[in-house]
Each structure stands twice: as C-alpha cells, then as structure tokens.
C-alpha cells in the first residue's frame, strides 16, 4: 500500500530528524513563535498570514542587523504544558532569539512565566488577560494587543453617555469574560454611580445555551446589555435574541463584536446598532493601513482580519526591538523594548516602560449592515494610552521585580 | 404434605443444619420451607428437576443470596445474612455449576490464591506472589490429579480439569462443609466416578460434610450417603439412596420421567 509506505517513511524521517540537532551556520535570526493554531483557527489563520507578510517585508528591506529573519512556529494545542515544551524546544534546539505569540490567557501566562525563569524576552501578541502585564507581569514579558481592561474602558464613554440604569451582563465563563465583566462594572460605576447590574450570565465557552440565556437576560428587564461573547457563542446569542425580539429597542454592547473574525460570519444578520470594538478594514484609509492592506491583499488575495494586524505587528515589534538593541543579548533586548516605538497598520505604538503594555489602540463604533454584510459605522480610533489607568495605579498592581 | 423427617444418623451436632428455608423471587416461590442437615464425613446429594431450587439453595448457603426466612446453622452458629466471604471464613468451600476460576493465572496460582487468602496474606504490596505456600498448593493439586498441569494458565484448560482445579481451591481453607454444584458436569463418565470417589475419600478422611447436586444418577446413587429431593422449591423426599429410589413421590415427579 502506497500510503502505508509513505507513512512509514515519514515516521522514520521524523525519528531521524528529532534526534539529530540541526547544524548551525550563518543563519537568519529566528523568532520562536507559539500559538494555538488548531484550537483557535478562525483567528490564527489570518494571524499567521500577517506574520508571513511582516517577515517578507522585513527581509525585502534587508533584514535586521544584516541578517534575514525567520519565524519558527509551533502549535501548542491550546495547552500551557505543550506550549512550555515547545518554548523549551525553540530555545534549546532552534536557538531562537526570543519568544513571541500565544493566544489564550492561560497559555500566555505560562509562557510569560517560563520566559521570566529563562530570562528570555517574550512578546505576547494576542492574550488579552490584564494579568500578563499587571498582577503577574514580569521583567521579560511585553504585550502588544490592547487588554481586556483597555478594550472595555474604550467602550465606557459611550455606555456612560447613554445613562442606562439597569444593565444585564453576559460573558464566557473564563478569565477573559470574567475580567471584562469586572472591569465594565467597576469603570461604569465610577462614571455613573446609580447604575444597577440586574442580571449576570456566565456561559460555558463555546456551549452557550442561547435561548435560555437570552430569555433570562430579558426577564431581568434591563435597559442595556453588556456582552463579551465572541465566535460561535456570539452568533448563537445574536440569532436567539433577534428571533425572540429581545434586541428590539435594546442597547447592546459587545466587546469584540466588531472584529471581522466574529462579525463576518453573521452576514446580513449582524446586529445593527450594537456598540463594539473592532477593525473597520473597509473604511480605514490612513497611509499606514492602506499600505498594509494593499500588500496583504496582493499576497493572499483576501482582506486582512484583526488577527492579521496582530500577527504582522507582533513580528514588526520583534524586529524593531532587535534593531534598537543592536544585539540579541536578552538584557539588551528587554531594555530596548522599554519605550520602544513600532510602526503598525494602526499607527505608531509604544511599549510602555511602566507595565510593558503597548499603546496599540482599537476602533470603537456601532455595527451596521451594508450589502448583506456586517460593517462598523460611526467608528473612531481610541489610542491605547488613553484607555489605561494611571501609572501610579499600574505600579501598585505590578509585582516588584 | 409434611416435609419428610430427616434424622441425622449420628448424635453429634451436624455441620450444617437448615430449618424452614424460604426464598421467593417476585411472586415465585423458588425455595419453600426446606430443612435438612449434614454431618461431618457425610455426602449428601440434592437432586431435582431443572428449576427445582437447587442453585437457589446453594446460593443461600454460601451467602450469595439472603433467605427470606429460615435458619442456617454452621456447627451451631447462625450464618443467615453473612456475606460469601464471611461464610467462607467459617469453613465453607464451594465449586460452581459453571466453573469460576482465574483465567489469566496458572493452575498453581489459582490454588495459591485461595491459600494466601486463607492465610491472610493477600495484602502484601511488595512481596512476590507465589513464592510462599507452593508445597501446600502442589499437595492440593496432587490430590485432585492436576499437579502435572500446574504451570498452565486456567484459561486454556479443558472443562473437566477446571472442575478439579475448583475442587482444589475449595479445599484450600480446610473446609468443614463443601458445596459442590454439579461437580462432574462436562466430564467423561470415568472421570466423574473418579472425582466423586476423591470427594468421598476426602470427606471421610478430613471429616468434611459434602453437599452436592448432580444430574448423573449413577453418580448420585452410587456415591451419596443420603439424598434429598427438591421439586418446585419443596423438599419432597429424603433418605438413603435405596429409600429415595423406591419413594413413590419421587418416582412420580422426578424419576418417573427418567425410568
């Protein structure tokens, strides 16, 4: 049987490969990248393309420190233990310069702690958890994307302006949803002390019982709903709510609802009028974005998603850090990361020295439907630095190290 | 109809005394007012057509089933409600109608298992099983004629051989009472006689009371000291083989169809 032979051949090839350390030569600078490609495929497929574009552009421009760059990617299966093993392999076998990537909070935190232990730079691209730069922040870990707290804070001005008194909340039952809910309640209460939170629904990730949840929220007779659902949960929630007429005349906020990854599948059922953060790629005409957009489109014949932006900017941040450090020494790299400025499709961002969070911002707006597709309307860009707590507050949260 | 009086031929306390045993499943009386006794060294056969209640009786005697009412005394001690384990500890050995042995263990290990259990040595975590009690196991196997197959796993044995292994295991705790449910089923006629000869010899020599069921009437009438007859849960006759053979009731409900 052909397949059997080929399988056997590839197995033996694998056997041979994994026990022979690759030879070292004058090689490109390797960036060790870890992500849950198979578990969060919808976000990470575009992310990977964004990275590829960044590598291509960097190398076309002559690379960095006179060497080309290369991203060595590993799939962590969504499991922190696998991620740490992959990190180990990238460092000791692939001899990567440092680590980038990760998606879910638990994997991000595990790799961050590993980086601290190994005294190796880690640029977390996507994990949203506030803890990675605050409560559990460390000297070696930096994070690109605006955190749960920041994205929530960006929505607060709109929420407070509406003066809705009774709020119902629904969130996926894990770190991201819990922090989003906590941040929303705290920040809104500060702006609008008379606010009441009349119902809270924690739904198992990926398994929302949408009909029952929508009904339970409606029963609490809220004036507005704050949701941090995304992906299939969001789609189910939107459909169940519109079928039951719950969203008619209801103000709804959804934290990530404007990201193309989660908005596009809804097509003409995208819930018009919802307040969201996201990425209005169709209408964003800044010079930085147009350049990125055209290059991406030419290379992949597809439009970029938010993941593409994050993947692209993560690699660009790594490149900028190497350039600024002028070396691959970890301490120099870490020092370079502080106050490092990076050009991204969303404009320049800075990695703050105080908490290692970048000032990357996000777009806040409302969902509309155009030509049978969901889009963002009335959007504005909120700079990340305006959505962060004061430096004094941040210092209080961050452990001293 | 009165249950036939069953006099114990000797004056000593019987090994097993059963009085007014009842067991019903749903509305069906499986065993109804059964009483009998066995003394040491005696072979008592329990016979009756299929469904007469023999296996139910056996299962009550070794604790697998609890009787609805009635008395069971083992050497004067009430054993109603005790678990099979507790009854075994009081000195009751049993073989099953469908053999039950440990298929993945060798013949010798099967017997050693019973011996270890009797010696209270099962809980050892680090000792090597099988090093102790080997001679004792081999002696028992020699008794039943299985020593030459001691190394073979039970899973591959012929049925008749399994019956003999079971017997060896049942003898491991030097029982006072041996319950044998169809001990010779599946054996060649010659083997049957040999096995029951062996049982009889052991019973006499070690003063074991043996209660057995059997379909082979040659074995029953040839080997039993006494016979009791069950029909539809009731005891309808009992006595020496020749008495039972001539009993009209027995002939009517049971032997009538055979002879």
């Amino acid at each position, binding site marked *: 049987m052909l397949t059997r032979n080929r399988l056997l051949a590839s197995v033996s090839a694998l056997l041979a490969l994994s026990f022979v350390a690759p030879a070292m030569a004058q090689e490109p600078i390797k960036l060790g990248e870890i992500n849950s490609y198979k578990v969060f495929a919808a976000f990470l497929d575009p992310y990977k393309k964004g990275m590829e574009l960044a590598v291509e552009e960097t190398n076309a421009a002559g690379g960095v420190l006179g060497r080309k760059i290369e991203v060595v990617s590993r799939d962590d299966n969504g499991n922190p233990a696998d991620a740490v093993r992959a990190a180990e392999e990238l460092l000791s076998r692939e001899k990567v310069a440092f680590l980038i990537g990760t998606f879910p909070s638990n994997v991000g935190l595990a790799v961050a702690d590993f980086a601290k232990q190994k005294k190796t730079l880690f640029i977390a691209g996507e994990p949203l958890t506030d803890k990675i730069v605050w409560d559990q922040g460390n000297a070696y870990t930096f994070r690109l994307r605006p955190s749960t707290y920041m994205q929530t804070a960006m929505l607060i001005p709109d929420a407070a302006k509406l003066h809705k008194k009774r709020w119902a909340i629904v969130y996926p039952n894990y770190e991201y949803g819990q922090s989003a809910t906590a941040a929303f309640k705290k920040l809104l209460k500060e702006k609008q002390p008379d606010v009441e939170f009349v119902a809270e629904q924690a739904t198992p990730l990926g398994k929302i*019982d949408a009909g029952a*949840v929508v009904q339970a929220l409606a029963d609490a007779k809220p004036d507005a709903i704050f949701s941090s659902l995304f992906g299939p949960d969001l789609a189910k929630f939107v459909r169940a709510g519109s079928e039951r007429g719950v969203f008619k005349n209801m103000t709804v906020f959804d934290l990530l609802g404007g990201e193309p990854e989660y908005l596009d599948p809804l097509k003409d059922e995208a819930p018009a009028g919802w307040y969201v953060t996201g990425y209005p790629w169709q209408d964003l005409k800044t010079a930085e974005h147009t350049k990125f957009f055209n290059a991406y489109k030419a290379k992949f014949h597809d439009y970029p998603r938010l993941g593409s932006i994050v993947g692209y900017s993560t690699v660009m941040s790594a490149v900028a850090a190497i350039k600024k450090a002028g070396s691959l020494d970890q301490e120099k790299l870490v020092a370079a990361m502080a106050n490092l400025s990076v050009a991204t499709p969303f404009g320049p961002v800075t990695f703050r020295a105080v908490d290692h969070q970048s000032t990357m911002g996000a777009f806040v707006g409302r969902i509309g439907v155009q030509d049978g597709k969901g889009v963002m309307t009335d959007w504005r860009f909120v700079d990340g630095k305006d959505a962060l707590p004061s430096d004094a507050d941040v210092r209080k949260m961050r452990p001293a190290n | 109809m009165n249950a036939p009086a069953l006099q114990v031929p000797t004056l000593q306390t019987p090994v097993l005394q059963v009085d007014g045993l009842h067991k019903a499943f749903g509305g069906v009386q499986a065993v109804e007012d059964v009483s009998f006794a066995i003394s040491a060294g005696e072979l008592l056969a329990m016979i009756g057509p299929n469904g007469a209640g023999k296996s139910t009786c056996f299962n009550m005697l070794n604790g*697998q089933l609890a009787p609805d009412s009635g008395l069971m005394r083992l050497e004067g001690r009430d054993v109603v409600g005790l678990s099979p384990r507790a009854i075994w500890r009081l000195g009751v050995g049993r073989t099953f109608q469908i053999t039950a042995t440990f298929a993945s263990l060798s013949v010798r290990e099967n017997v050693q298992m019973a011996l270890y259990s009797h010696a209270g040595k099962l809980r050892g975590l680090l000792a090597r099983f099988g090093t102790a009690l080997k001679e004792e196991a081999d002696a028992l196997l020699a008794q039943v004629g299985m020593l030459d197959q001691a190394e073979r796993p039970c899973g591959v044995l012929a049925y008749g051989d399994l019956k003999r292994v079971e017997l060896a295991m049942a003898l491991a705790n030097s029982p006072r009472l041996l319950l044998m449910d169809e001990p010779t089923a599946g054996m060649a006629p010659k083997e049957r006689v040999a096995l029951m000869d062996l049982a009889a010899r052991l019973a006499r020599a070690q003063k074991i009371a043996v209660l057995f069921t059997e379909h082979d009437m040659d074995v029953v009438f040839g080997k039993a000291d006494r016979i009791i007859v069950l029909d539809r849960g009731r005891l309808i006759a009992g006595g020496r083989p020749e008495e039972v053979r001539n009993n009209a009731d027995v002939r009517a409900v049971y032997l009538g169809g055979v002879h």
Partner: protein
Amino acid sequence: MTLPSLLIQLLNGLTDASSLFLVSAGLSLIFGVTRIVNFAHGSLYMLGLYMAYSLIQLLGRTPLSFWAGVILAAIAVGVVGVVIEMLVLRRIYRAPELFQLLATFAIVLIVKDTTLYIWGSEDLVGPRAPGLTMAFDILGKRLPAYDLLLIVVGPVVLGLVWLLLTHTRWGALVRAATQDREMVGALGVDQAKLFTSVFFVGAALAGLGGALQIPREPANLDLDLSVIADAFVVTVVGGLGSLPGALLAAILIGVAKSLCIGIGTTSILGFEIDFSRLVLVVEFVIMGVVLVLRPYGLLGKPPAVVRAAGSAPPPLTPPRWPTALAWIALLVIAPMISDDYIAALLIDIACFALFAVSLHFIMGPAGMISFGHAAYFGLGAYAGAVLLKRAGLPMEVSFLLAPFIAAAFAVLYGWFCVRLSGVYLAMLTLAFAQITWSIVFQWDSLTSGSNGMVGIWPAAWLSTKSAYYYMTMVCCGLGIAFLWRVLFSPFGFTLRAGRDSPLRAEAIGIDVRGFQWMAFVLAGAMAGLAGVTLAFSKGSISPSAASISQSTDGLVMVLLGGVETLTGPVVGAGLFTWLRDGLARETDYWRAVFGLIILLIVVLFPQGLVGGLKVLLGRWRESRA
C-alpha cells in the same frame, strides 16, 4: 423567576433536550449492538452541520430545499459511518475491550482536519429554516417556531426508531444483539451486515441531530468534542441501550441547564450563588447522582449474564533485568549527550508514562476502566502548586505531599466508583473528574481559575534542567517500578483474580471491592505524583491538566501500547508524546497524520504495539525452532 419565565425556560430546556436526545440515540444504538465506545460520534454530528450548510447553500433557500438538505446531510453522514465501520472497525471487533475506542479517537483527529481542509477555519452561520422564521407569543414572551418544532422532533424520532426496532426483522436482530451479542452470532445472522447497518442508522441519527441545528448553531470545528461528552452523559444517565431512558435523561439535563440559567444569581442563606456558572458542570453532577443511586442509569438494566471469559487476557510477564538496566543506562546518559530539549521531552514522556502506567494499573489488572483519570493527575499538580504558592510550604514538602492529596480524593471518589462496573464505572469516574475540573476552573482565589497558576518552579538545587531531569527519572521510575512490583505481589494477583472472576474471588474470601478501592487509591496517588512532577517542570499548571482531553490522552497511551501488556503503557506514552510533538512541527495537518498513524497501528497490531510485537516475536521464534 416568574411563572411565565419558568414555563419558557422549561420549553427552552425541552428544545435542548430534543437536540441532546438525537445525538445520544445513535450512540446508544451503536453501543448496544457493537459495544463500541464511539468517540467519533461527535465528529459525525459536526459533519452533519457542515454538510447541511453546504447542501442547503447548493439547493437554495426554499422550505423544500432546506429539509431536503437536512435529510441528505443525515444520509451522507450515515454513509460516512458505514465507511468507517467497513474500513476500520470491522477489522478490530475481536480486539480486547475498548480497543476500538483508539480507532474512533483517530477518526476524530482525521475528521477534524478533513473538515478544516474542506470548509476552512471560519465559523459558518447557516440559514434559518424557511417558513419557520417567525416566533410565537407565549404568555407575553416570544418563542421561535423552529425551537417549538424541535421539541416535537425528539419524541417523533424516538417513535420512529421504536417502530423500526419492534416491527421489523432488523429491529428484532438489533434488540437481540443488544441483549446478548453472542446469541446473534449463534442464530446464523450475518453479523457484519448487521453491524454495518446499525452504524448507518446510528451515524445518520448523529448527522440528523447536527443538521437540524443548522438554524441555531454555527458550524465550527469545536463541535465534535463539545458534543461527544454530552452524548455519553445522556446515554449513560438514561441507561445503556435504552432509548426512552435517553430521552428522559436528555429532558432531565436540558431542563436542569435551562433552570440554572433561568435562576441566575440568587442568594441562599445569605450567600450569593450564581447558578449560571453551574451550567458547565450540571450534567456531570446529575450523572454522578444518578449513577450512585441507580448503578445502571434511569431505565437501564443490569447487563445480561456475563459468560465465563472466553479469551482471558494473557498472563503478565515481569520485565527482564538486562533490558531494564539497558534502558536505565540510556536514560542516565541521555541528557549528557543531548540538548535541554531532549531532557524536556523525556521529562514529559516520563510523567505521562507514570500517568499511563497508573491508569493501566486499574484498567488492565484491576479491570476498572476510567474515563476520568486526569482528575488525580490534575489534583496532584494543583496540590503541589497550592501548597507552594498559597500555603507557602517549601517546594520539596509541597511536592511530597501532593500525591497524598490526590490519593485522598481517590479514596473519596473510588468509594463510589468501585460499586459500579464497566462503562457505568468509567462514566462515574468521568463525572468526578469533570466536577473536580469545574471547581479548579472556577475557584479563582485558590486555583486562579481558568488562568491556571504560574511560578511553580522547583527549589534551587533542582533548578537546572539536568537536575530536574534526574529527579523526574527517579520519581517516575520509582513510581512505575512500584506499580509494576505491586502487580506481581499478592495484592496485584488478588486484583487480577477479582477481575477474572469476582464470583470465585468472593467465594475464597476476597473482598473484591475493597481491593479495587485500594487499587484506585494507589493509582490516584501515582497519577498525582506524575502531575506534580510535570507541574514543577513547566513552572505552571492550568485546568487542562484535569480535563477530559488529558484523561483521553491517558487512555489512548495505554491502548496504543497494549492494555494486556506490562510495558505497553510506557511505550504508548512515549510514542504518543513524541509523535504529537514531532508531527506538529512537520505539517499543518498534524492531527490527520497522527490519526492515520494511530489507525495504522490499530489495524496492524490489534493487541496494541507491545502486544503486537510480542506476537510477532513469538512467531519468529517458532519459525526458527
């Protein structure tokens, strides 16, 4: 909650119940007849959704094309079921119990990657059912017409299947086979045809269950695993092989979930309790309670007479000293001649090997299948982390105490589990594992919840890779040696005796349950040791260590190596970990390749890898003799 709300939530619960029932019905049928624990049932459900999506898109948006699409999708999935049965499962019906689970695990991996390849990674939101997009007003609340329709579909399908089972010859055969599989063979029925047809019906039911969800659920790649656990829970709570039981269980679970959501946050005795947070575990709580009270499920019957085992597992052979010493020598020099990564990989393999050996300890010799062994792995890991970070104990003390804490939980859980047997026992272990997982997942102040705990690094003297490597080898090596030693002790022989014949064991004075309980505790302690060893090597621990997928990995390792051999679990753990690690590097579609390799092993070595090699070795020796 007001009365109208309660009523609406009950109706919501019934809609979900109907959906749950449809998936479970097929699973129940397949298990009843073939005794295969079909892990790929969720994948068939997922395929149903994807196929319905594509078919409806192809056929157009009229009511007729919608329903035609749903039915065709169900039939197509049925055909996939037939293909799976004929190409793979048919070859391994004679393999030891549960081995087929390994094949279906491989199929899950292959189906997942194939689906990704065909349909892409983006979630696909299907159309709403044409003609049924309206909603009805019930007591001032609106309920979608399609949801009401679904409530009816479950019982209707139950009725149809019941008619099929009671009024056709095929149905009579299926019922006979469910009660007594060997009988059917004796009746001269073509068993292969019967099994194939049952697979068709079972798979088609799963496909139908998926296709019917198209207006309610986006087709996405996580559906397979999220559905399979639900389907097993419903099947077992209802009682294996009982379709009315499955419906009853589905209603119980569907309504319980809806009520948890409906009640929301309530204060009881001054405590604020958020019932919605219970949703992720409520079905497992129900399963635990049902199985403790009714060991064969709501409407299940005790399994028919178990015959004297026809094919007993072969006797175990202890490892030979020369081989063992060679391995030890190799492991001692490995880190000296290689890099840190090999050490890291070998640490992972050693921990999983101990985990797999501890699972094998209860699965093989003690005859107790566990679907929830990760509970003790996770508990050991978390015990070490909590003692270190929360109680502030030194690393060495935390490390040493961890296995005892895992064992303490095994004492508690085991006491209930050993009262059951077979799949029921396996599912009760799963219930306890999921309850443990959900507590670990949500108890933020103790375990840091879903984030997991970080900063769990070993003491200074163990902080280099090679120091920790040797510590791992000593701990896991001793753990494995201890469990193997026990298997050849009087205790271990007693376990095997109790597995071979509980009847005989009790009749020679053995307290079978007591021994099984003790075995459960020993295995739990060793799984805990494996967990804590791994946690300190990674510096972090997250709830996935106690998750279903961790339990499944353990099962796959044991089965891959061969459950009837001693060294099988170690080989299985090594191969599994190394393959998964290596394949992910070589190809994007590593899951499919991994699945194919497992299938290859399954078909070539139905006794597992070590079992198969032993057979080959035996044949070779014979041919030389």
